[in-house]
């Protein structure tokens, strides 16, 4: 089966029909919900919530509904109008934006307490037009995202990496933009169950307050985290 991002750009792939199909598929909805809960867990927010969060690629609001349930105030963006219309109809409480994350974010510095992103990042690696565009877009995305986060806040990306080269590219650019962190793999030994979460830290909340990469699920061995820096 082809990877969706090889078929068409997301705003065309997720047209009205596909958007409806995606949202009403209970298996997909259940998986998205599970991954959202895991991403929120990896955010390691404190106990004095609710918090102000960003949902990157919020789609039809499957992840946003979970943020609503937890009582957080959030803003979300997506490039597919059909998906956003479904989210609006669902009356999710977050503020929705029609936006291309590869064009950068437009938030003032230190706006958000954290960011999550479910099944989105692989779309940003697509060269829909010119060869060198993905790198520039990733850089624009990560640099503006870094600034929009509070110091010490995290950005957690569940995504489907195509290959190691893609992971290297994403991590390299995120690091250049100031992020630390790494990739957390849940159930790494099961081809069916395994999930990847890119955990990025936007600096430290206070000097000397190093953040540890969370451990992946489903393995008795030492580490499922691939740290890309030694901070």
């Amino acid at each position, binding site marked *: 089966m082809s990877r969706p991002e090889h078929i068409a750009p997301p705003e065309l792939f997720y047209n009205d029909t596909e958007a409806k199909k995606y949202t009403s598929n209970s298996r997909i909805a259940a998986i998205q919900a599970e991954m959202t809960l895991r991403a929120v867990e990896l955010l390691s927010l404190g106990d004095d919530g609710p918090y102000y969060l960003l949902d990157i690629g919020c789609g039809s609001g499957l992840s946003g509904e979970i943020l609503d349930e937890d009582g957080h105030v959030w*803003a979300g963006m997506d490039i597919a109008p059909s998906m*956003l219309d479904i989210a609006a109809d669902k009356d999710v409480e977050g*503020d929705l934006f029609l936006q291309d994350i590869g064009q*950068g974010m*437009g938030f*003032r510095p230190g*706006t958000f307490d954290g960011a999550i992103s479910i099944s989105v990042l692989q779309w940003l690696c697509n060269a829909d037009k010119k060869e060198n565009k993905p790198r520039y877009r990733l850089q*624009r995305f990560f640099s503006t995202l870094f600034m929009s986060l509070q110091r010490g806040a995290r950005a957690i990306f569940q995504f489907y990496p195509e290959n190691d080269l893609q992971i290297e590219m994403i991590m390299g650019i995120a690091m250049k933009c100031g992020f630390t962190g790494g990739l957390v793999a849940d159930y790494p030994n099961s081809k069916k169950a395994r999930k990847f979460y890119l955990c990025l830290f936007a600096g430290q909340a206070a000097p000397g307050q190093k953040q540890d990469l969370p451990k992946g699920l489903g393995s008795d061995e030492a580490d499922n985290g691939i740290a890309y820096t030694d901070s």
Partner: protein
Amino acid sequence: MRLITHNMLKCHVKNCTDPDKQFPLRFKDVQLEQIDAERNNEFLVRMLPRIDWPALSKTTKELDITLPETVPGNPEDDEEFLQALHTAILETHIKQGSMLCDGCGHEYKITNGIPNMLLAEHEI
């Protein structure tokens, strides 16, 4: 879109970087809707340092919404202030209209409560 998020927005067009002009984005021809929401004082107090008060003042005046002129010394103890803040930033939704950048002139249209932040090729 609620006013809390509008207060965090700045124009992200390339080379539009004058901090005095790129935010707050100026509303034009807007339709508002007030929707009740549960108030959480801890959240409001946490967000206070992040809110740009002069920008919020400017925007609420444009929209004819009540907002105290200044933040009181002990906001966490001032129920009246917190309620007014809550209503302004979390219960006021902009449903239609547009947002203009005074720096570069870009117009972000708002439809069905969703602002269109897509930029043209020359603005990236």
